[in-house]
């Protein structure tokens, strides 16, 4: 139970920040805060797959897009209940993940990245060409979306839920099996870990969380179209958040999301330059700081502790 204390403290601190910041900064703060919360949820989900499971996905866009489309469909045609629509988004993305899992889990993960990339592109092309779901023009929310503050509260609730889900997950037996599969799938299978099921669990949970984030984004925009909703940018953002923050580090998504949102605000007037710099940061971090910013901070902390107590053994990164 002791291992829970830092998480609870973290969450309490985060909650205070989440409540205070927008109250003191007004509309702009709420807008940025909303995006930050969405990105943290995306990052947490992506980190579960890649950091803990070695499943490097480039298909964030497919879950985000499914989430947004299902939400709009639910609200427009079935029920005005937002919690119900968000749940439906999550379930739809989880089902999709389960359906494509036989294809993307082949060949020891080599094709997971390419397979998920193909899935996102396939869904985008399908939505553009298939006329039933609005085609290339997309769909509109029939009713007005909630106020920015209302949306922000929803995002905060989703953030809290995602944090709880991932916190429980990363402490469960399932996550030990997941890390075993990541480190050596053959050896894990030898000692009785069902690799396929373990990966499938992470993939479906992560896809569901990403879909909820996508659904909130759809709600925020009020209108969705295939180019943006299924756009590669979602995948680029998710990758950058976690790689910069720190793969497999519990605080990685939060740190990474802050950096990515700040960079986006800074370079808002230069979209191409912004994405190019994103790519450059990705390359530099992978090469020189594979554990991301949190990894760097941890190393620095351990280095200082080791310097202070000369006989203490330097501990490795536990992830």
């Amino acid at each position: 139970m002791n291992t829970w204390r830092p998480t609870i403290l973290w969450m309490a601190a985060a909650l205070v920040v989440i409540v205070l910041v927008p109250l003191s900064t007004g509309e702009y703060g709420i807008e940025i805060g909303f995006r930050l919360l969405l990105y943290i949820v995306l990052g947490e989900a992506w980190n579960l797959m890649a950091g803990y499971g070695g499943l490097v996905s480039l298909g964030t866009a497919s879950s985000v897009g499914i989430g947004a489309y299902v939400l709009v469909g639910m609200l427009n045609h079935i029920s005005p209940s937002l919690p119900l629509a968000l749940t439906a988004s999550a379930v739809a993305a989880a089902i999709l993940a389960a359906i494509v899992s036989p294809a993307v889990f082949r060949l020891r993960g080599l094709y997971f990245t390419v397979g998920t990339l193909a899935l996102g592109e396939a869904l985008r092309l399908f939505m553009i060409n298939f006329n039933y779901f609005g085609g290339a023009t997309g769909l509109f929310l029939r009713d007005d979306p909630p106020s920015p503050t209302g949306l922000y509260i929803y995002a905060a609730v989703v953030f809290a839920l995602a944090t709880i889900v991932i916190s429980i997950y990363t402490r469960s037996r399932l996550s030990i099996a997941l890390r075993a599969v990541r480190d050596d799938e053959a050896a894990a299978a030898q000692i009785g870990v069902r690799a396929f099921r373990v990966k499938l669990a992470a993939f479906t949970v992560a896809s569901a969380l990403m879909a909820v984030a996508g659904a909130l984004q759809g709600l925020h925009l009020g209108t969705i179209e295939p180019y943006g909703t299924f756009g590669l940018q979602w995948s680029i953002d998710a990758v950058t958040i976690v790689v910069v923050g720190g793969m497999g580090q519990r605080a990685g998504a939060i740190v990474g999301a802050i950096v990515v949102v700040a960079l986006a605000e800074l370079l808002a007037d230069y979209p191409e330059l912004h994405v190019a710099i994103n790519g450059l940061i990705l390359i530099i971090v992978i090469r020189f700081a594979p554990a991301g910013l949190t990894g760097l901070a941890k190393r620095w902390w351990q280095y200082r502790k080791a310097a202070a107590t000369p006989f203490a053994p330097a501990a490795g990164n536990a992830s």
Partner: protein
Amino acid sequence: MSGAVLVSNLISGVLLGGDLALTALGLSLVLGVMRVVNLAHGEFLIGGAYLGMFMLQLFGIDPLVGLLLIGLILAVLAYPIQKFLLSPLIEKGVEAPMMTAFGLSVILQNVYTILFSGDTRSIERSYATEPLVIGSVTVAQIYVIGFAISVVIIVLVHLLVSRTGFGRDLRAAATDPTAAGIMGVDVKRVYALTFALGAACAGVGGTLIGLAFSFTPTSGSGYLLTNFAIMVLGGLGNIFGTLIGGMLLGFLQSLGGVTLGDGYRELVGLVIFLGVLAVKPQGLLSRGRI
């Protein structure tokens, strides 16, 4: 749709598939030998198309005449990417080089947009638009030219891999880099040359594609996925399998385009890719390795 139009469409697809097989071969070589998933391959391909266009616009060199030069330029440009970006990461597993290549892909797409604008481009040549009529079957001349050139280069690559000293080193490094290194193969040199060869295939194939179709800075990602589909159809590291995989995919894409509508061409390729991965991930045509 009349029978002649249908047949013309399908033949065009097969010919185009041969062209795409050349670019897929580059991707397949790099993955097979270095175990690097080069996610920037599509941008190399589009880089070849831009090079062909600017060569014609600025110097008046016909892209077909400058084809080998384009391949050479791509190979030379790819060399430092492999040496300074990918090579230091190869021992750290599959993910690090793959994500570095992804970062590179993102950078290149946006640098192309900044330098050349997001406009749709094409390489204007008379032979690119003129049709070739044989009986009632009509195909664009450039499809036939591109197919012929691609097949010749694919055969040359096959001879390089199967008949030369470099090819022997390459096959040894692909099978077991450590053992190959102990036996005196300069594995780093093999990797550098393989990556350069892969980029050259992308550049030459990209110019041929640029002659046949219009392209934008972001067209590369679609071709990347098509190349993966071809690679999986033909079997990783199987050179002639890649050619047959390309022709098969081209045929199926055209069939999809004819029956479902032109917008579905690319989607058909992606669905086939995911389908083959689920059913027979070693590739439909896999028997031999490199």
